[in-house]
């Protein structure tokens, strides 16, 4: 035939394709050959069909279209020749997945081949079925496969078992068919069949709690199999580097893990075996380590004895010291999963983990970083921070953000002293300033602001840092703020904690101006610098001409924000110079709680204070501006602050004019102990919610430190006529003994006339077999409850 004589042998085709020097050339060769193949398929040449398909499959592997070979696969599978079947089934696995229409047509061929006697053919059919069998096919052929589980040939049995696994994955209901044979199959000696059986049982247990319960009975048998394998089952053909069939060992260990999870009895049964495997496995080669790793995973997942868990963590710790990178990798990943549940055991390996920070491999150092951060606690925070900062200086950029925020978080949680906290944050900002989170600036200014004894120290350090480098924006912002606030301390000259620093006024101003003018400074940073300059006009002793000049220049700055500030400051110089000092006073400390919350909290407290007669230390107008500047200059929101007045603009102005200064938040009212008898104690706690000045909330808490429960506890209250009282339902009527959970009850009292509060309480309860009634008036009520 003309077609076949000019078409190539497979090996020649491959050769020609490899010799092609360009993509285009390769395409040409392939297209030419595919034309021949197509013609051959059309002409229906049964002799060479397998060869043609083989060529097509090679071309398919390279990424070229091969769909026209699908029907040929079917024909080859149906052929009686083994050569045809072999290539045909391979073609089916490569070309005929579930999405193809022709897929279902192979079912019949598979069915025939499963039942005829040549095991190589049965093997092909089973293999294809488990690689591409659709749900429908699986349902059709389940019983055929079930029969093959009992075949005399181990070759067929092992493939049938794994085909069953695939069928269960596709059609879970088929579990009913494949569960019963498992018990028998578990007695197999053939490693392949046994391995498949374990896999099948694992699959069944993962899908059905009933199956899980059923197979738990086999834990002793599984333990026995593994023990035999480990102690006596050495066979060269199944072993790797002296470890008996590691594949089978790992599979059994996995199944044991699933069976022992959350089940005390099973866990106990396997405890000794796991200890044995963990201690006796040869770890000189990867195969042994693979088994050991699986053992560790199993130990950690079941209810194992504490000693065994520690052993497992120690194995992981040893893995960390292994030369093989892969083993260190799995160790780090596993320790990360365990660090919460077995914290103290993992802590013991902290030095090794820290060593792993120096790994050149990025995926390892990343895991080491995560693990290191998880291991920081109050006793090791200094040492760990030191290591992590070293890491921060040299780590790849994609890890810098995580490392920086990790260090800052750890510092916040475990800082031994404020100075250490400031130093640490400073160092992070200097090393990785561009990668820190947005709130780092706010947090640091908050921190510094609150540590009065460290103001001088902070401003000096920040000044030195700023003088060296004005590019790290968060650092520049904090430094500018600090210099503005505490500039006078900077010039004073002496501070024991840092090296002596002689700074001239002109130098400070020059530095701030540099920041203002630098192209590296963000608009927000410039804002900080401008305000800082302004504040310095009151802190420094020289004349303010230089500052006035800078401020007036920025009055025509293109940036609207800066322009606004500059204009306001200018006005301050020109028209309100007599108030400048008061306005630019040091900021009182803002309450913790996030910048936005601070703004809102301050605003709501101002409204609450409206009806209070709060003292007014400065003139109304100056204080109005003081508020404005206060909210502008606060650490919480220079760059993008909301309008500094609260939501009702008209009302706010009135507030500010009448009671202008930012009042301190109301002090909490102290609790009051009102009753005690034989271990039963009653405490009152008071809250005056801001925004509702006539409302008082009292929480009555009953605690019982005696040996007997207090039951049927009822508390009633009475108040004078002008008051309104509302009792809410108590949390319970039993106060358990020995300091158990206290009962609470809320009282709402409205006092519109602001009369002095009087409160009478009536208690009835049973205690130590006696019923008790007590009536009394509460004395020593603090004045804050009604004033």
């Amino acid at each position: 035939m003309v077609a076949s004589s000019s078409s190539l042998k497979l090996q020649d085709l491959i050769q020609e394709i490899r010799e092609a020097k360009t993509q285009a050339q390769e395409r040409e060769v392939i297209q030419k050959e595919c034309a021949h193949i197509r013609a051959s398929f059309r002409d229906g040449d049964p002799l060479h069909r397998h060869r043609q398909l083989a060529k097509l499959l090679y071309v398919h592997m390279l990424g070229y279209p091969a769909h026209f070979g699908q029907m040929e696969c079917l024909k080859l599978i149906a052929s009686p020749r083994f050569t045809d079947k072999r290539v045909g089934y391979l073609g089916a696995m490569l070309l005929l997945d579930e999405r193809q229409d022709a897929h279902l047509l192979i079912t019949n061929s598979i069915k025939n081949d499963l039942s005829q006697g040549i095991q190589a053919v049965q093997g092909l059919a089973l293999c294809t079925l488990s690689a591409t069998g659709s749900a429908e096919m699986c349902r059709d052929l389940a019983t055929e496969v079930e029969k093959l589980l009992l075949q005399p040939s181990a070759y067929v049995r092992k493939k049938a078992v794994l085909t069953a696994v695939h069928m269960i994955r596709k059609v879970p209901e088929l579990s009913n068919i494949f569960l019963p044979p498992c018990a028998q199959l578990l007695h197999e000696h053939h490693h392949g069949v046994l391995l498949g059986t374990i896999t099948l049982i694992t699959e069944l247990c993962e899908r059905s709690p009933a199956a899980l319960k059923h197979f738990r009975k086999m834990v002793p048998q599984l333990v026995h199999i593994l023990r035999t394998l480990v102690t006596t089952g050495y066979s060269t053909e199944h072993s790797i580097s002296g470890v008996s069939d590691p594949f089978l060992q790992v599979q059994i260990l996995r199944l044991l893990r699933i069976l022992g999870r959350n089940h005390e009895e099973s866990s106990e049964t396997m405890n000794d075996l796991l200890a044995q495997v963990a201690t006796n496995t040869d770890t000189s080669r990867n195969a042994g380590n693979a088994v050991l790793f699986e053992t560790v995973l199993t130990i950690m997942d079941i209810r194992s004895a504490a000693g065994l868990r520690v052993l497992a963590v120690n194995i992981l710790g040893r893995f960390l010291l292994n030369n093989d990178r892969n083993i260190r990798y799995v160790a780090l990943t596993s320790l990360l999963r365990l660090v919460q549940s077995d914290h103290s055991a993992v802590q013991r390996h902290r030095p090794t983990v820290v060593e792993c920070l120096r790994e050149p491999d990025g995926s390892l150092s990343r895991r080491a970083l995560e693990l290191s951060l998880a291991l920081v606690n109050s006793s090791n925070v200094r040492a760990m921070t030191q290591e992590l900062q070293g890491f921060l200086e040299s780590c790849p950029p994609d890890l810098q953000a995580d490392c920086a925020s990790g260090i800052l978080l750890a510092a916040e949680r475990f800082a031994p002293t404020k100075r250490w906290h400031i130093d640490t944050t400073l160092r992070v900002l200097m090393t990785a300033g561009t990668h820190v989170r947005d709130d780092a600036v706010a947090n640091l200014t908050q921190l510094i602001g609150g540590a009065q004894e460290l103001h001088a120290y902070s401003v000096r350090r920040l000044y030195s840092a700023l003088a060296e480098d004005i590019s790290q924006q968060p650092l520049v912002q904090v430094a500018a703020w600090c210099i503005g606030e505490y500039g006078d301390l900077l010039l004073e000259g002496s501070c024991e904690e840092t090296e002596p620093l002689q700074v001239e006024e002109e130098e400070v101003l020059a530095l701030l101006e540099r920041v203002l003018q630098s192209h590296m400074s963000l608009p927000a940073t410039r804002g900080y610098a401008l305000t800082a300059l302004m504040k310095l006009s009151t802190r420094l002793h020289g004349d303010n001409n230089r500052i006035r000049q800078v401020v007036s220049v920025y009055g025509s700055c293109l940036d609207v924000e800066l322009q606004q500030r500059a204009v306001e400051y200018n006005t301050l110089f020109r028209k309100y110079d007599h108030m400048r000092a008061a306005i630019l006073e040091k900021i009182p400390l803002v309450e913790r709680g996030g910048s936005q919350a601070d703004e809102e909290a301050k605003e709501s407290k101002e409204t609450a204070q409206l009806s209070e007669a709060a003292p007014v230390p400065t003139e109304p107008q100056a204080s109005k501006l003081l508020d404005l500047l206060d909210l502008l200059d606060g650490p919480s929101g220079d760059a993008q602050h909301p309008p500094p007045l609260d939501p009702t603009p008209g009302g706010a102005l009135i507030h500010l004019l009448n009671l202008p200064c930012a009042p301190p938040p109301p002090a909490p009212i102290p609790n009051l102990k009102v009753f005690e008898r034989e271990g039963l104690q009653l405490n009152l706690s008071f809250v005056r919610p801001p925004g509702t000045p006539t409302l008082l909330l009292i929480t009555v808490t009953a605690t019982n430190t005696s040996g007997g429960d207090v039951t049927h506890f009822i508390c009633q209250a009475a108040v004078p006529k002008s008051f309104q009282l509302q009792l809410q339902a108590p949390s319970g009527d039993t106060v358990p003994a020995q300091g158990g959970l206290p009962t609470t009850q809320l009282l709402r009292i409205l006092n519109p006339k602001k009369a002095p509060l009087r409160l009478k309480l009536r208690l009835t309860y049973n205690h130590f077999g006696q019923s008790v009634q007590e009536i009394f008036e509460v004395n020593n009520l603090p004045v804050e409850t009604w004033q």
Partner: protein
Amino acid sequence: MGQRTLSPDHSSSRYASLYFCCAVENQDNELLTLEIVHRYVEMLDKYFGNVCELDIIFNFEKAYFILDEFIIGGEIQETSKKSAVKAIEDSDMLQEVSTQFLMPREKMMVVL
């Protein structure tokens, strides 16, 4: 032995100029996966005798057949190198025999 690396969803091994890549699931034991790849390479080596890249290229279908004797449906079916390779050789023999019976002329073309 080749160079081997692990990562969250695949493992790869490098043997001289050959790279082997294997997709794994979450619960798979990565260290064992490396052993699986190595076992497969050993099977290829035993079958071809000192396997090299060209052996696999020019006998790609054999590479598939050998893999199918080692792994089915993503799970290991045979842990004995000897048994797996013997199964391939038996199948090769069957191929030859069947062609002998049916098409004497085609004996030459057993190697595709």
